[in-house]
């Protein structure tokens, strides 16, 4: 199967879910309103703090808004395009994965396209607006090379978030729970990365920088784009993304080998 065909089928799989979601139009708007409100509250919260202080450890209001925005965008992409990953634990528990094993399409893509999280759409849009506003308020020195590298770094950051989602959800192959508790706990820890990494004690810095590299979803990419702090670390983001995808794919493959169906 060519990549193009894989992609076309993926879009069609998601499209089917999208159509069924849009059947409930009011619910759609309630979801949009709920998620937009969450981001508005985030910005209001930051504005309230920064009304009294000029910076957090040298990071300005707009820099922190950009970090919040990156987490929102990465989460949004995860929800909108790969929400099915969160269903993996249930599929394993119920042995529903059997159906996917016999279909001629990569299992991991079948899993991730099993659902659509429409909240992702509003998170991408509001996150994008926040990031755009932040970028217009910081005086970065833009050269064509920096623009290209910046885009690569931001895209890599999103890939890292999705890869962490996949790896932690694939841990469900080893845990028998029908809900992805571990993955969700890790996901919640990811919210720590919305603040500059430097505020945390060393143990947390190490965790967010290496073990669960959430700092590469928001803090390091933003510091590269701002050219502030240890900006060069941000350039490592694509490498971290490759590493995360490799680990996630390996965990998923190993997990799939453990899959025992329903055993009856």
């Amino acid at each position, binding site marked *: 199967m060519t990549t193009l065909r894989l992609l076309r089928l993926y879009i069609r799989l998601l499209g089917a879910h999208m159509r069924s979601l849009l059947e409930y139009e009011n619910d759609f708007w309630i*979801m949009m309103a*709920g998620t937009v*409100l*969450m981001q508005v509250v985030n910005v*209001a919260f930051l504005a*309230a703090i920064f009304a009294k202080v000029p910076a*957090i*450890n040298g990071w300005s209001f707009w820099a922190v808004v950009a970090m919040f925005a990156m987490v929102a965008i990465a989460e949004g992409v995860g929800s909108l395009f790969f929400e099915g990953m969160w269903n993996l634990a249930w599929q394993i528990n119920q042995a529903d994965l059997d159906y996917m094993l016999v279909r001629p399409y990569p299992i991991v893509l079948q899993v991730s396209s099993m659902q659509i999280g429409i909240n992702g759409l509003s998170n991408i849009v509001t996150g994008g607006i926040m990031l755009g506003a932040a970028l217009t308020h910081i005086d970065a020195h833009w050269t064509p090379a920096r623009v290209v590298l910046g885009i690569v770094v931001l895209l890599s950051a999103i890939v890292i978030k999705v890869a962490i989602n996949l790896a932690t959800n694939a841990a469900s192959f080893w845990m028998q729970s029908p809900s992805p508790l571990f993955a*969700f706990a890790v996901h919640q820890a990811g919210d720590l990365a919305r603040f500059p990494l430097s*505020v945390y004690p060393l143990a947390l810095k190490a965790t967010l920088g290496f073990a669960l590299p959430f700092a590469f979803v928001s803090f390091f990419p933003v510091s590269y784009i701002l050219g502030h702090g240890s900006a060069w670390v941000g350039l490592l983001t694509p490498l971290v993304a490759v590493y995360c995808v490799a680990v996630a794919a390996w965990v998923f493959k190993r997990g799939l080998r453990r899959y025992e169906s329903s055993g009856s």
Partner: protein
Amino acid sequence: MKGLTGYRAYRAHARAAALSALAYRGSFLLALGGVAFQLIALLAVWRVLLGNGDAGSIGGFDWPHMRSYLLVAFATGALVGGFVDFRMSHRIRSGLVSLDLVKPVDYQRARLWECIGGVWIEAVVIVAVAGLAVLFTGPPQLPAAPEFGLFAVSMVALVPLKFVVSYLTTLACFWTENFVGVLWARQALTGLLSGALVPLAFFPGWLATAAQWSPFAGLTSTPALIFIGQATGRHALLLVAAQLGWLTLLWFAARALFDRALRRLTVHGG
């Protein structure tokens, strides 16, 4: 159903909810995880901003006060987690609520008691986390005796108040299939207006005043301000009175809304 038999029926609801929370302890604890990570992040940020005690104060808060404030905010955030509203929303949307309706207990009171059943487990977690936080950042200053009494009253009143705010929003399930959107909107609004994210004093004056006398202040700001000694004497008394007033008002508003909601209920099946 008056007297002892009635009370026993509600106690049974509390016990069942506690057992179910223990059986699904993973999801139960996870619901507290979000609040715990928020505590870690906010403690870290404010420790930097307030320079561990030698950088003076911001917005009337120095480090020891802010630290205590955040601890109380964590406690109020952890109490009455989403355990009951998720169950309730599911039962409304699936129609199972009809089985609750035929039971000879008051629907709203039964749900409150289910909440109370989970509270003691949450309290254990709160004590553990607060103990850890005190271990890492030092012991908090306790308020004087009368204020401490008011703080205790406020924390107790918080349980039914937080319940009734959740209950009111969960009733939206009679009108919409999408509970998550409603839940997120509520969490966002209450997080901001209750002072759980940042003390209300940091808001512009009009918003701070409005939030302080809104039902949401009773969810975090009131007990937290009393605990750190920023609200004392008459002011503290007024805040707790407002909290109790809102509790009464919302309790009866919820009853009225429930009566309307029931008219929307369609249950299929033979």
